[in-house]
């Protein structure tokens, strides 16, 4: 899949920006130590998820970091895989997470979850749920903060028995892809999928 081209990152905030405390009277303390909006690596999301992200979150690069996924490395069945999204929030200047989307490109439907949050969602954004995974795949999550920055991550889950599709030849397909690689033959993205093309 193509990497999302890098675009201009948000300009770093001044160090002495006032910090808003939720529900407080507005008294401000100057904070000397504020996490830098450090220049980060970007993360490429599957092609078919980009239109969802664009509609929900607008354009822009997705930075790597801030959101983490808690997923098992191996799911014995894809029927019910526990997942937790954790995102750093609120940031010292009061930015909060306003949206989290999750994509499962190996499933018939790529959009797996979509959460809309507000400042009252709390200081520890941690959302736990269970998802269905059709087969072994990378699970992607992107969080959009109220300053419109996007932060994302991915996690590879090995599913021994797919849920959405009776993935009866998944083993054979994995072996085929490994063999091709071993023999120095490139299999283009659009020919790697099994029954379902990656990211329909």
């Amino acid at each position: 899949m193509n990497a999302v081209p890098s675009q201009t990152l948000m300009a770093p905030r001044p160090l002495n920006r006032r910090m808003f405390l939720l529900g407080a009277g507005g008294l401000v303390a100057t904070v000397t130590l504020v996490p830098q909006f450090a220049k980060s690596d970007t993360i490429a999301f599957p092609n078919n998820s980009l239109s969802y992200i664009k509609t929900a979150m607008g354009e822009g690069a997705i930075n790597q970091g801030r959101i983490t996924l808690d997923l098992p490395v191996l799911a014995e069945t894809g029927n019910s895989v526990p997942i937790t999204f954790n995102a750093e929030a609120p940031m010292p200047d009061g930015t909060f997470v306003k949206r989290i989307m999750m994509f499962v490109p190996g499933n018939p439907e790529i959009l797996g979850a979509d959460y809309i949050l507000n400042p009252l969602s709390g200081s520890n954004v941690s959302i736990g749920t269970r998802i269905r995974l059709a087969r072994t795949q990378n699970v992607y999550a992107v969080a959009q903060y109220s300053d419109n920055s996007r932060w994302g991550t991915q996690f590879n889950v090995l599913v021994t028995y797919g849920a959405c599709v009776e993935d009866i030849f998944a083993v054979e397909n994995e072996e085929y892809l490994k063999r091709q690689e071993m023999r120095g033959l490139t299999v283009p993205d659009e020919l790697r999928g099994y029954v379902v093309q990656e990211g329909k």
Partner: protein
Amino acid sequence: MTHLDITRRNFIVSTAAAGGGMMLGFYLPSAAQAANIANNPWERPTAKDGQEINAWLVIDPDGTVTVRVAQSEMGEGIFTSLPMIVAEELQADWKAIKAEYADANRHIKNNNVYQRMSTGGSGAVRLSRVYLQQAGASARERLKEAAAKDWGVTRADVAAKDSVLTSGTKRGTYAEFATKAAQITLDKEPAIKIPDQYTFMGTSVARLDTPLKVNGTATFGIDVRLPGMVYAAVMAHPIPGGDAGTRAQRTLKSFDFNAIKARPGVIGAYELKPQGDTTSGVQPGVAVVADTWYRAKTALGLMPIQWEMGPDVAINSNGLFDRMRKALTEPGAAVSRKDGDAEGAIAKAAKKIEGVYESPYVAHACMEPMNCTVAITNDRVDVYGGFQNPPGALSVVADNLGVQPNNVYTHTTFLGGGFGRRSRNDEVRQAAAVAKLAGKPVKMVWTREEDFRQGTHRPMAVTKFQAGIGADGMPTGLWIRSVQHSITAHSRPEAVVNGLDNGAIEGFRTNVYNIPNQYVDMHIRNSHIPVHFYRSVAVSQNIFQIESFIDEMAQAGGKDPMQYRIDLTKDLPDYQLVLKTLKEKSGWTTNLPKGTGMGIGLSVAFGTVVAQAATVSVTRRGALTVEKIVCALDCGHLVNPSIAEAQVQSSIVMGLGDATIHEITVDKGQVVQGNFDTFPIIRMNQMPIIETHFALTGGDKWGGMGEPALPPTAAAVANAIFYATGKRVRSMPFSHTDLSWS
């Protein structure tokens, strides 16, 4: 249902050898031998209420350990092999182990606690092994912990073996500590054994279900009896399946109940309205309900029924094959594989060959015809039958009747053959509809004719192969275009993108041969005939096709087919082991006198690599005898070698049938075959000698055993026929090819 009464089935009749007298032998199973599984396998095998340690196992006060089995017993032996996996870790005395089916209702209420309850994809052992080992290990450690607490020692000081816990001079049984163990939570679950540590898995213990099947007390779907139950015979529209458009034109016009109303035992006749999917839903049809099944079936057979046939009445097999052959040259094929430039390599090659191969629809032909029993009350629905997917059956009943899934209880029986057929649940949906109409518990059984007529069948396929052979006799390019009736295109169309169903061309797309330039594409050409997974699925027809062509390629290059395959899989250690084992054990040769021949077939399915060498003889007039089949395979590891070997034998029998005689044809839109006179299956006198050799690479490989030995058989036999007669068979079944030679 007790089985202490001596019923007709409990007799074993034997005839005296001399003197012409007849001797009746009575076989009464001893208490110890009997009932490791209840004859109703969904019921507790012991009368007692034991202590549940975890969802997978219960320990009774007398030490009996009941293991719950989440897959369905259809002869593949899971009622033995899965408890063996738990027992390996649990370290219970195997003689105290009994088994019952896991409960699908509990499964859906408890967040899929049994992980996977469908049976298919040769997956029972390989997909559940890890968590079954975990369940057994967890229970064992909790028992040890309970004893440790009681005895004031640490868990590490407690040994567990054969249902006994010991530490120094202290001794206790699993039964004594079961209740305490059930309360314990471990802070860390134990690691499971690796194969090198197995002491029990890998041994050929006797099957737990054999006694029940020998003495006839095993309950299959057709054996279910409920109080107040009535019987239904059904006939769905004689032209089955289709798509929504044609199905709307295919209807039940009328039926004349008055003509049969007065017949003995007849209760009612009901219209079955179409519901749900055109092949797995309820088809338009009619059900006759009576107080015995024979009366229902006879009345149904005599009742005048008028059908609107619809446009599919114009469809026949010749037309379907012609359509597929035509598609071989039509544009718009979906590309599945593209290594290098196969067309170019073939065009430039020293020698070019091509061939078109064809395979028909084939019926599963389960020995037990489709059936299901449904009992509806105000607060629950009970469903009985041989389900390969009990949670699926549960949800179609809930859906059909509009009730909460939590109130539907499935009871899986033994299955008289599954082969994939019993995972579709079309008969379940139909039985639920009949039960609702009849207002009583109903056992619905299809006649054999209905069973063949309604399908669902293994898809048909036509494939064209082209290859370029280099000056050195080795292949430079392989080009494959396959035209398939796609199961997925009907059942899950959203999973087929731009006409590509990679599952349908399994074996082509993923062929293992190290040929530099390869190209595979496909066309989907579906018909109205309902299709579903057949034993080994796509490779059941695809391997005959590609493996026969690989032999043609070998012969075009002047190569020995066995060595050819060894050379083309040089970089794959498991294939090398399997092929070399086969070469040695079969005494491989292409140098037999005319009229006899050896042929080879190679395939992989569900992670298991299988190669077979068939020895055949063909009379000058073309009568074929398959004398011997030697099979070498690598499934990684074995839980029960004798059960695995039985799976090889049964797969080969089915593969042999596919090769030589199985065929479903269509005329006037309807399936022609109705019974085993027109759809013959392999009989005992046609059985070849079968030798099985396990050539296991072990390690991380855990391949399936239920299906993988089926695909290579047809190719091995076809390739042997070539060496025996010089004739190349290009279509299944081989009965269509004249094998005579001079």
